[in-house]
């Protein structure tokens, strides 16, 4: 049998295959270069970048939970300038397709970041992390309010020629409403889910296990919630959906594709198996062959109901 066709398109961005990395779990790519051929991945989504460098939260920042982990990294990053001068060149040399995850405290931040990154060579798309608190609106996350989500999306949309992927927070009553708002605001795609807000307590000291008290839950534990949300959103919006959340194996990735995701991002699994992305890609190819599917696109949204 010939090799199945793995290409997918996310809002004008053609990817050789649908396996991407999730922001914040793959560093700036270079960290994994001795395990994974970066060029072979669908795309590398880098750690969230802000206008100014951020130190992040005080430690402890991570704690393991049942089939998952909580993190309160606090969006530590080198800032857009150092990203462009120190991190991007490596990714370009490695011939990776680079998606830059961006974050800000205000709409102006997002707009400025989009402009700045649009001028750079070697960036394939922007992923807008709207789970951050809007400091101008009293700290309510952009991603939990449809109006704010739309406003951020519009601002970025108008500031860049790059494909815009809006990354949704799962900590909402109705994620389809936020997804629709992003689509209305001009997003080329949505990606979901970001982490679920969680907490853990040290019963000996009676203190939170994270200095930040609460943190984001990721890993296999969240997969059922993520898959449900991806399915709901894929049925609602007409733009492509990128599935994220607990993907550890090819089987997991295939579930997301069947639920309607056009591509997937692998997150926490990279920590446990730094070759997870390549192995998931290999498993996906094997599945397509076994099921005699000529193209991965036949799988996308192929869930049979009733």
């Amino acid at each position, binding site marked *: 049998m010939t090799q199945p066709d793995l290409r997918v398109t996310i809002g004008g961005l053609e990817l050789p295959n649908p396996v991407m990395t999730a922001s*914040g*779990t*793959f*560093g700036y790519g270079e*960290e*994994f*270069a*001795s*395990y994974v*051929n970066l060029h072979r991945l669908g795309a590398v989504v880098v*750690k969230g970048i802000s206008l100014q*460098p951020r*130190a*992040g*939260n*005080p*430690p*402890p*920042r*991570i*704690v*393991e939970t*049942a*089939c*998952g*982990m909580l*993190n309160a*990294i606090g969006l*530590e990053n080198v800032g857009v300038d150092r990203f462009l001068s120190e991190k991007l060149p490596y990714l370009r040399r490695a011939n990776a397709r680079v998606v830059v995850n961006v974050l800000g405290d205000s709409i102006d931040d997002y707009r400025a970041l989009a402009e700045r990154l649009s001028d750079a060579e070697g960036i394939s798309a922007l992923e807008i992390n709207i789970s951050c608190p809007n400091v101008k609106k009293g700290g309510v996350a952009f991603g939990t309010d449809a109006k704010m989500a739309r406003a951020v999306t519009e601002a970025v949309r108008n500031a860049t020629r790059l494909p815009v992927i809006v990354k949704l927070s799962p900590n909402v009553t109705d994620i389809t409403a936020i997804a629709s708002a992003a689509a209305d605001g001009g997003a080329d795609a949505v990606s979901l889910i970001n982490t679920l807000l969680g907490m853990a307590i040290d019963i000996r000291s009676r203190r939170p296990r994270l200095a930040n008290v609460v943190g984001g839950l990721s*890993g*296999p534990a969240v997969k059922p919630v993520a898959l449900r949300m991806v399915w709901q959103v894929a049925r609602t919006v007409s733009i492509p959906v990128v599935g994220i959340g607990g993907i*550890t194996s090819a089987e997991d990735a295939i579930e997301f594709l069947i639920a309607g995701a056009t591509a997937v991002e692998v997150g*926490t699994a*990279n*920590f*446990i*198996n*730094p*070759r997870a992305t390549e192995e998931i890609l290999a498993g996906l190819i094997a599945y397509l062959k076994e099921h005699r599917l000529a193209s991965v696109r036949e799988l996308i949204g192929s869930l049979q109901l009733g």
Partner: protein
Amino acid sequence: MEHSQTRTSEVVRSERLGSDIFRLTVLAPWIAEAAQPGQFVMVQPADGQDPLLRRPFSIHQVTGAGAVQILFKVVGRGTSLLSRIRQGGQLNVIGPFGKGFALPSGVEENICLIGGGMGIAPLLFLAKRLIGRSAVVGCRLVALLGARTGSELTVLQGEFQQLGLATAIATDDGSSGHHGLVTQLMLQNMAPGDAWRVYTCGPHPMMRGVVEICQGMAWPCQVSLETMMACGMGACLGCAITNPKDPNSYLHVCKDGPVFEMSEVAWR
């Protein structure tokens, strides 16, 4: 592009060195060849997802035959699962990771290795790399080892001695060696006027004690730190510690360390 291995390795030896202290020897030539003392590996305690994350362990020894050893104490589920692995079993180990001990550039100093509890683990590997050097000019090479109780040290002390190091031990329960803290052995074994270089690994309070003495004596000292780690390779940013030189940034133990100069660490 170098291609690091992620496949499982064979456990060629499993030892019990104390009631809850174990040592595993794992065949992983690609790690053994690359490893430097003070570096660590990330170990998956079992297949499946409980526990989910890998566990960091210092590289305790490497052998010419391509084996890597870890020495550990059972403190939770991960180490408990590791303690049940027998010879012939499989273990998924990746690495080596991190910045190890900086070996002295000259050979003219006396060197003291100070280990508490499982902090002893990386010092045996370090001792092996140092013996060749110090032998040249006859400088002193000393190991001060601390533990809860004497039986935990029997095997390890013997191995340091076999390498030719002068060793002294301290135990919390007084069952062997000095009854008290390993820091109290320092002044008995290290003449204040002499030039000493110190390498230490162990519980935070112990290392703080060592550092205080070293600062007082102006002895250079390197410390090996522990934090929670998700990835071990600089990707998750979970292993942050305060950077005393720049309050607007953090150091990352898995990449900037685990070994630091004592001056790089905030010792509250």
